[in-house]
């Protein structure tokens, strides 16, 4: 009887097995990538008008609510109408070519299509107003927007990310008057402060905050 396999063939076999394993891992990784949110995290997103939050918020000191006017009253923070932009830009930089779409919307009825950065699945009902009312700051979820020339997304917006705060709001809440403060940093005694604020703002307990019905309807 002879050997079925020559040692060299065995080496080849082992190589094939290893290759298959690596291919499986690569496939799993590719699947992860392919099913990611459509707009990547931490990557600035191109926009039809290269709007800079850094300039408007960081340099000019505009309040968030000047443009996102319904953030305190409605689920949706609000995208400013073109008229809002033109309150200043009817005077400033009116000739700048990059602002041309701003005027085209009126003269040519060509709307501006902003690329959406923060996008939740359709079955998730996020409400800005209640988060703002309970002391969740803009920068907690949106990051230092005042330092973003083009805006990008800093949060994963995955369910486990939401749960991270809903399970322990005291780690994130801040005083209501600092909600729109971009530069706010959690103090050293955040946990202690957070617990006080949770009590003061009547933030519901973890069980209620992690109810499925809190976000899904």
């Amino acid at each position, binding site marked *: 009887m002879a050997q079925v396999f020559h040692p060299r063939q065995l080496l080849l076999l082992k190589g094939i097995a290893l290759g298959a394993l690596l291919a499986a891992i690569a496939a799993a990784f590719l699947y992860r990538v392919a099913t990611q949110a459509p707009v990547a995290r931490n990557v600035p997103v191109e926009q039809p008008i290269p709007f800079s939050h850094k300039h408007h918020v960081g340099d000019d000191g505009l309040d968030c609510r000047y443009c996102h006017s319904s953030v305190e009253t409605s689920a949706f923070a609000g995208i400013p109408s073109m008229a809002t932009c033109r309150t200043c830009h009817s005077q400033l930089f009116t000739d700048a070519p990059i602002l041309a779409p701003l005027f085209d919307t009126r003269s040519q009825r060509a709307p501006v299509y902003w690329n959406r950065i923060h996008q939740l699945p359709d079955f998730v009902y996020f409400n800005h107003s209640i988060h703002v009312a309970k002391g969740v700051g803009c920068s907690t979820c949106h990051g230092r927007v005042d330092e973003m020339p083009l805006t990008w997304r800093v949060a994963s917006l995955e369910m*486990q990310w939401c749960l991270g705060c809903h399970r322990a709001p005291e780690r994130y809440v801040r005083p209501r008057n600092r909600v729109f403060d971009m530069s706010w940093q959690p103090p050293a005694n955040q946990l202690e402060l957070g617990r006080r604020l949770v009590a003061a703002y009547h933030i519901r307990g973890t069980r209620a905050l992690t109810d499925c019905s809190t976000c899904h309807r």
Partner: protein
Amino acid sequence: MAGQEQVLGAPSSQPVLRGSYTYASITDKIADTVLERPTHWAWAVGFAVSASLTVLFIVAMSYLFAKGVGIWGIDQPVSWAFALTNFVWWVGIGHAGTFISAFLLLLRQRWRTSINRFAEAMTIFAVAMAGLMPILHLGRPWFFYWLIPYPNKMNLWPQWRSPLVWDIFSIGTYIIVSILFWYMGLIPDLATLRDRAAQRWKQVGYALLALGWRNDARHWARFEIAYLLMAGLATPLVISVHSVVSLDFAIGNTPGWHSTIFPPYFVAGALYSGFAMALTIAIPLRATFGLQDFITARHLAVMAKVMLACGLLVTYSYLVESFMAFYSADRYESFMLLNRMTGPYAWIYWTVIFCNVIVLQTLWFERVRGSPWMLFAVAILINVGMWLERFMIIVVSLHRDFMPSAWGMFYPTFWDIAILAGSLGAFALLFLLFVRFLPVISMSEMRKLVKERRESSS
């Protein structure tokens, strides 16, 4: 041929191995079925039929995935029907294989030796068919993995109190353990095939599967212990699996489901239908491949006896179910029973009773147990009867439960039947491939049987 065996006298007095075989001749006979023998015409016909049904199965599954379970006849209130019936039926069939290979091994029943291999194959293919059904029946089958715990971005877990999760665990465990057990038993035989294969590709294939088995006494020592341990594990497992399957219903509150007798009732029913299927397969198999010396009339008779015992347990369960419906004085329970017997699906109830209780009684007669083709007919009827029994438990209980305003009927569609027929075809196809490529009888165990017979005769 039936007459031929009659002259040998009562089947129970026959040996478990006929003829005068040596180590070499028995090895050659079994291995040649795989390696040498030309394709039998019956195999070819069976292959063509089962392959066509498998194609139908694939078409039906594709259409199902494209359109949704609405292509079936299920509705409110009967939202489970064929798929779950098939599931329970196939799992039950699987049970006979494990029972033969593991439980009888522990009991050192020598008649197990020549039938355990194909019975285990039957188990694996049946459980594979069964395992498909719960996935097919999901509304969103692409999310079936949500029933399995794994780290996920939603921080969610399965809901452990649901018997469906227990099902995933028990069916998953069952199929893995069955495959391991079967494969482990195959390793020495794969080595034999490796050593005897003439063509290079067969040699390579069997060599890879044999993992370098050398028939070393050390291998044998570990093999025997591990095999025995696996048998010891598989035995309680097989009991637990159909118990868990029965809990899919018994945990529910539907009258006709919510019953404490279900676990033993289902296990007995599983073995009953499993042995019926084993006979359904064994009888044509031995005729086609000339295995009458190994799968003797004795084997068939013993399996018939087991079937009789299980069938009587099932009959007892029917009686208890009826008695409890009356004795509990529960309005819904007694209505459920009355509805089974006299409602729109009464014909199913009475067919079940005919197949599973009346026909069964013929097995008391040695004449029936000794005639392979009569046994075959009985086994087929019991297969049908057991499928209908599961249909009765599932559909006839659901269609009229608590709220008369929500009562309804179930009418199967073409696609219901296509899935059932397709799964039968796929099962048969797998089995035919198994018969062609792997030894249907364990050669190493048969060699040991030859030795034992020699010792006992000397």
